[in-house]
């Protein structure tokens, strides 16, 4: 059944059945593979995307339920200044190891900074508590978000 979804600012036609999730449609049909499938149960956070500006789990969002919503994936944030600062800081502080969690963490961090421009360390840790990372021990990820926030200050 064809469905029109607004993804990264463009209307994309996708095929979706009742149980197809946004994650499956993004990855298998639109080949937007930044959002990753780590658990398909909404726990790991590797599939985090923005839906109407709020970070949500693509694996727990039915494609059929996303009609009319504005969906933004990491691929759609390449020209976003705040995301550019995050990417630069993640690279510089060693916050990326295997990189499988990175897209989800970046989307959550981007959303965090969009409503709290200068978060304390504990606020960053709370904001990212829904994104699992098994490689880094989180410390450099949290430092990178703080670094990106500092960079944004005029």
């Amino acid at each position, binding site marked *: 059944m064809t469905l029109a979804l607004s993804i990264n600012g463009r209307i994309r036609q996708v095929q979706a059945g009742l149980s197809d999730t946004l994650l499956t449609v993004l*990855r*298998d049909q639109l*080949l937007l*593979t*930044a*959002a*990753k*499938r*780590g*658990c*398909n*149960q909404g*726990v*790991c956070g*590797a599939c985090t995307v923005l839906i109407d500006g709020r970070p949500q789990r693509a694996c727990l969002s039915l494609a059929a339920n996303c009609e009319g919503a504005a969906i933004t*994936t*990491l*691929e759609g944030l*390449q020209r976003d200044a705040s995301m550019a600062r*995050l*990417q630069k800081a*993640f*690279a*510089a*502080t*060693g916050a*990326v*190891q*295997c*990189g*499988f*969690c*990175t*897209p989800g963490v*970046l989307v959550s961090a981007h959303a965090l900074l969009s409503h709290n421009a200068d978060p304390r*360390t504990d606020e*960053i*840790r*709370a904001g*990212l*508590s*829904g*994104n*699992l*990372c*098994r*490689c*880094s*021990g*989180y*410390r*450099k*990820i*949290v430092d990178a978000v703080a670094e990106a926030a500092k960079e944004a200050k005029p």
Partner: protein
Amino acid sequence: MSATAKAVGAALPRAEVREKVEGRAQYIADLYRPGMLHGAVLGSPHAHARIKRYDTSEALAVPGVHAVLTGDDFGDHRMGAFVKDEHAIAKGKVRYVGEPVAAVAAETEAAAKLAARLVSVEYEELPAILSPEAALAPDAAIIHEDVASYFKVFDTGSTANVCSRTSLTEGDAAAWDRCDVIVEGRFATQPQAHVSLEPCGALAEPDATGRVTLWSANQSVFRVQANVSESLGLPMAQLRCLTPRVGAGFGNKMEPHIQPIAVKLALATGRPVKLILTREEDFEIVRARHPFKLRVRTGALKDGTLVAREVEVLLDGGAYADDSPGVLGYSLFMSPGPYRFRYMKASGTLVYTNKLRFGAFRGFGNPQVSFAGEQQIDEIAARLGLDPLAVREKSMLRPGDKWFGGAEVGSNGLEECIARVKAASGWAKRAELEPSAPGRKRAMAAACTAHISGLLATGAIVRMLEDGSIVLNTGAVDIGQGSDTALTQICAEALKVPIERVRLASPDTDGSPYNWGTTASRVTYTTGRAVVAAALEVEKQIKQHASEMLECDAADLELRPGGRVGIVGVPDKAVSFFEVSARAHWARGGPIIGHNSLVFEKPSVDPKRAIAVGLPFPQIGAFAFGALVVDIEIDETTGKIEVKRAWSAADVGRAINPLAVEGQLEGAFVQGMGLALNEEMVWDGPRLANPTLMDYKVPTTLDSPHEIHSIIVEAPEPDGPFGAKGVGEIGINVVPAAIANAAAIALGKRFNALPLTPERVLRAMLGK
């Protein structure tokens, strides 16, 4: 990076970080091929049963199904790192719940999964063996009836349900008589799941001649090639194994998972087949950290000098040997810890059970034996009223000492590691630590460790292209630990070129030199040495050309930063790598290629010093050292432990990339904290009861301390690349032991079993 900046020692971003932060990095699940089919497997419902017959008719009737394979479609070929005891799919018998019994390839994933469920299998159930003790019972059912006939790479002593046994003894047992204090205890650790964030998967594509190209989540393209060819009875040359980006491994992708089945499905259908495990299948089918049962005795003089230790371990190996014999042997090899003992005896038995195979997991047995050994040193210190770190400093291995069994220790920075963590943590004033709130108990404790970096074979090829830039090819898979970047830095440093002038070729069994694998903290040291040696060959060829171009003796030449070679002391007499390479390509000598192959050759044991029985690896070494201090708090209401701060120092010989070294120490600490405090795979009878991330929980940002201070100590390893040793595992080894030591100080109670859940701690506090 400017031409003059150093490569080795620079905290450079990862070579591949751009694609990772832009979401363009491609992992196995992100690969799509034209005409690709999807695979799925059916797991065994029984822990131990004979397979009587299959009925695939219902499965074949599912629309879109191209192939349904069962054990009958696979030859009687077996694979296994130490004992060749494993088919590519269950054949004749199932040995753990979830073991793949049938596999399907179909147009869609849904059709494949439905068809896999519809394969009906008739079983004859056998008694399930669910513990090592049950496996050793005289009348126990035998899991591998023909274990005696399996090919084994060392003298395993396999018999009945015993997969292997190992023992290592050094010194004179009479040392026990000289001990003023002896502590003894039984300890138990729990199965831990790797939870690499990327589930295992593979994509196999046959060509017209039946040769298969196989991408998969792996830690060694050469182990994939060996395991797939052995288990399918294919010549290795018929397989080309490649690697996409890998979403972490920690050991669970070192040996095979779904690759052999994916290749067989591709051959059966003549189509590319992609098979990605669900998170739940990854928990149930692949492998996990060995639960250990230990009996340990440690004796010391009244001044705290360590004298003797005996360690006896019993390992649940699960249904197949996999890396277990290695884990058994290595845990015994590391069981003294980094200390001098006059008498040391370590022995152990590995048994088969009807659970999923237990295998390699960061630390490879060291965390398990350290959980016992490092607590006993604290117990001795407490009994003698001595500072636990002082007791360790008194008996620690010193430069020039040999390891247990006689292995040579190149460099040893343990003393500095202990000094640095003591200073950074305010160890001397640890008694003054105040709880952060009423109703809490606070304590600081420590533990020390060592780990190896050198074993087995590797190689490197360094090619200079026409324009003088460099392509490095090592066959080492970067599973996220940063080896691509570190090896590139080593090569750039060796040839004094900016790092951007060196490109690393992705591992490919067709073109890369052999590399045993990304495991045992070995790649920086073992492969790094091959890179330095290969670069040296390139340097020789460059200087040969330059001596002819500049009409001088090659010995008078030096490499200069930025890709130039010139006469020592004559700044303007130089030529660029570009000019040298052009000459080599078009006029003299031919293209410049440097190659080196090596295997780690230092013996693990000196027969004159120690008696070894069933040691699974004759040549390992290159020791790194570490010291850890933790500051914890215990909530007296619930028994819940919170780690507030940690200081983890490691002697890594030379930090090729300090950012990556810190990342390994911090990541290992938090993964070790999960092992210490709450991670546990729980069985409900024969079934894994928590094979989902809803029920198996790993630490989040809010469970991990922000203050994890990683401290780099550098005691250069004589033959290490620029002095470097390994760092991948050392940061996890003593996290459970240090936390248990801190809990013992806070509560005056010793914890002999992991994990230290609120329940276990509260019971101990209340004496329940």
